[in-house]
């Protein structure tokens, strides 16, 4: 076997070496196998046995879920059990085995694929997606009919694996959290995809946008995933493996050195302080905030509370989740972002129209203003949690002062009703505006007068400013955070905020890239919020620099004409000022 090198987009740093596991969302394919007439009955028995085994497995899972999560979360498994007992399915498979003399697994897959195809014709998006329940059940049954490891499902993944998928949905990503994944490799996606965010938070490398990795990699192939360079090496030769083993131990050694920085402030050698905060995707990650020396949480995303379930999280559940984070991080501050659904994040419990251009459609604050019932429930939960520590809140995707006023009007109403009910909350909780839309950049001076702080969300700002869909792999190369247009926008927002004496922070993958973070320092950002795993590297950089150098280099960079020129120039300057940073 000769090694094969695939080039993709580096989405999360680090190096991993391990066996590939292909997450198969596609149709099931099994070889066609014909049986003789006297094998028919034993083949039917084998099918029934597999149904029985799958049923035992689902019962066990159901018990576990009832124990860990509650009765309600387990209800979907009743539907799965009924699918196993389904009279139509059994008739068609058993009838098919008898009539065509095909093996059980082949007949079963044929019937399932037929169901899935007819599901794909259902008009209603949500109902159509129920084919995932059928796939899930079919995977369990197939596991007992064939010895293919690829029918394993996510619940039962045990060993250390490199996950190879066409695309990871946010809910796949959540299911994988806390599993022992060594790395992620996907066909689709860009630097800011969910795969990237999850990989960073799990501190494992990820390479995305490989286009057809799932066709070139097979289950059990050994892979080296180089998250620095964006390479995936399939079945690497011994010299390649040795090279990477050395590289890996070098990375580990430098990580240990970084640990010493945890308790030290992010301050340049000439005394300029910048606040370094952590982005929080899941409440589970809260332990990482201190571990990586963050000075608080700059972006607490709340979408994950709404995913992987069929209903909306009630106020009490949201309150407890937010409170837990606020208390765990206190006395450090937490900035929570109100619900940012739409775009590439969808939930089962609410049907959001799938617009032709979802990032320009009903998402984030637009969705919340449209569904004030959902918005108010969240605001109540956030306000109640504010009584337990230092919490501030921000609205995503504000496009102008009109939306900010509408959102604040809802907030005022919610505060009033809490007051009437004598429920405690922090009446002085700061409320900020996320700057992600070019129109908000252009009117930042007006917004600054009516908001307590700004947080620039660069993942979205870059895509809106450059008209580049950030989840489209064909335009991924145009996604340039160092584009002069983006830098000028950031500059404008910082100036507008500082004119009104409000803090200007930035949360986005941009902050975790040393070259870009260097520019951001020079642009005068007060706070940088990033994946916890990047914090120590950025802190080290800040502490090794002089602010006067940041200002000088940034000023010169602002005069350059392309993003590439900016990155090259700043990169070269940074390597000179802080040798051996990476």
């Amino acid at each position, binding site marked *: 076997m000769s090694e094969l090198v695939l080039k993709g987009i580096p989405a999360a740093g680090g190096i991993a070496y391990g066996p590939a596991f292909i997450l198969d969302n596609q149709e099931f394919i099994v070889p066609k196998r014909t049986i003789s007439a006297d094998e028919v009955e034993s083949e039917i028995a084998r099918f029934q046995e597999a149904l029985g085994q799958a049923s035992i497995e689902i019962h066990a899972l159901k018990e576990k879920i009832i124990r860990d999560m509650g009765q*309600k979360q387990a*209800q*979907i498994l*009743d*539907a799965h059990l*009924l*699918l196993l007992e*389904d*009279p*139509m*399915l059994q008739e068609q498979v058993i009838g098919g085995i008898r009539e065509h003399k095909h093996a059980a697994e082949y007949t079963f897959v044929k019937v399932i694929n037929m*169901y899935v195809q*007819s*599901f794909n*014709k*259902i*008009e*209603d998006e*949500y*109902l*159509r997606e*129920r084919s995932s*329940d*059928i796939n899930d059940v079919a995977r369990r049954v197939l596991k007992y009919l064939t010895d293919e490891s690829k029918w394993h499902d996510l619940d039962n993944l045990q060993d250390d694996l490199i996950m190879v998928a066409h695309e990871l949905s946010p809910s796949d990503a959540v299911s994988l959290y806390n599993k022992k994944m060594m790395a992620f490799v996907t066909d689709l996606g860009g630097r800011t995809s969910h795969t990237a965010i999850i990989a960073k938070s799990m501190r494992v490398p990820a390479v995305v946008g490989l286009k057809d990795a799932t066709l070139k990699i097979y289950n059990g192939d050994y892979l080296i995933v180089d998250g620095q360079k964006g390479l995936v090496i399939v079945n690497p030769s011994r010299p390649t493996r040795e090279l990477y083993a050395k590289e890996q131990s070098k990375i580990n050694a430098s990580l240990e050195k970084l640990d010493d920085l945890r308790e030290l402030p992010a301050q340049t050698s000439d005394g300029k302080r910048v606040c370094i905060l952590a982005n929080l995707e899941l409440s589970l990650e809260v332990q990482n905030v201190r571990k990586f020396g963050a000075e608080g949480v700059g972006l607490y995303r709340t979408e994950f509370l709404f995913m992987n379930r*069929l209903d909306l999280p009630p106020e009490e559940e949201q309150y407890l989740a937010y409170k837990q984070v606020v208390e765990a991080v206190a006395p450090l501050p937490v900035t929570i972002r109100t619900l940012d659904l739409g775009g590439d994040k969808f939930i089962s419990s609410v*049907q959001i129209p799938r617009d032709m251009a979802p990032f320009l459609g009903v998402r984030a604050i637009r969705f919340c203003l449209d569904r004030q019932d959902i918005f108010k429930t969240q605001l109540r939960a956030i306000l109640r949690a504010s009584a337990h520590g230092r919490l501030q809140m921000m609205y995503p995707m504000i496009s102008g002062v009109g939306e900010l006023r509408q959102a604040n009007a809802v907030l005022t109403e919610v505060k009033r009703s809490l007051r009437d009910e004598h429920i405690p909350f922090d009446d002085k909780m700061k409320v900020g505006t996320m700057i992600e839309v070019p129109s908000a950049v252009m009117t930042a001076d007006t917004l600054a007068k009516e908001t307590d702080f700004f947080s620039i969300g660069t993942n979205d700002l870059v895509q809106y400013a450059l008209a580049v869909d950030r989840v489209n792999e064909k335009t991924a190369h145009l996604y340039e955070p160092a584009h002069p247009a983006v830098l000028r926008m950031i500059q404008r927002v910082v100036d507008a905020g500082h004119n009104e004496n409000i803090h200007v922070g930035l949360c986005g993958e941009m902050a975790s890239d040393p070259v870009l973070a260097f520019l951001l320092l020079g642009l005068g950002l007060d706070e940088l919020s990033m994946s916890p795993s990047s914090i120590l590297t950025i802190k080290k950089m800040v502490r090794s620099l002089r602010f006067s150098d940041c200002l000088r280099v940034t000023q010169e960079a602002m005069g350059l004409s392309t993003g590439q020129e900016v990155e090259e120039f700043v990169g070269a300057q940074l390597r000179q000022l802080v040798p051996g940073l990476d």
Partner: protein
Amino acid sequence: MPRIERQVVVANKKGMHARPAALFVQLTDKFNVTVSIAKDKEKINGKSIMGLLMLGAQHQTPLTLTVDGEEAEAAMKEFEAFFAKQEEDLIP
């Protein structure tokens, strides 16, 4: 043996997805009847969750229920009530 046929409309806002379909199949098991459900020209066994899911019956979809058997009347009464309810009210 009595046979009853009725038109119903799916009241549940999310349509007949996995959980309500499962509840319906469980409900049919309480009665000694056969049930078929038709949407336009498609007709399925009402005791098959797969069949129910494949109908893709969303909110406001009209369906024709046919119930055969001694307990047809009692069964139909509960089935009609089932389709008139929202999901929250179905799940105990």
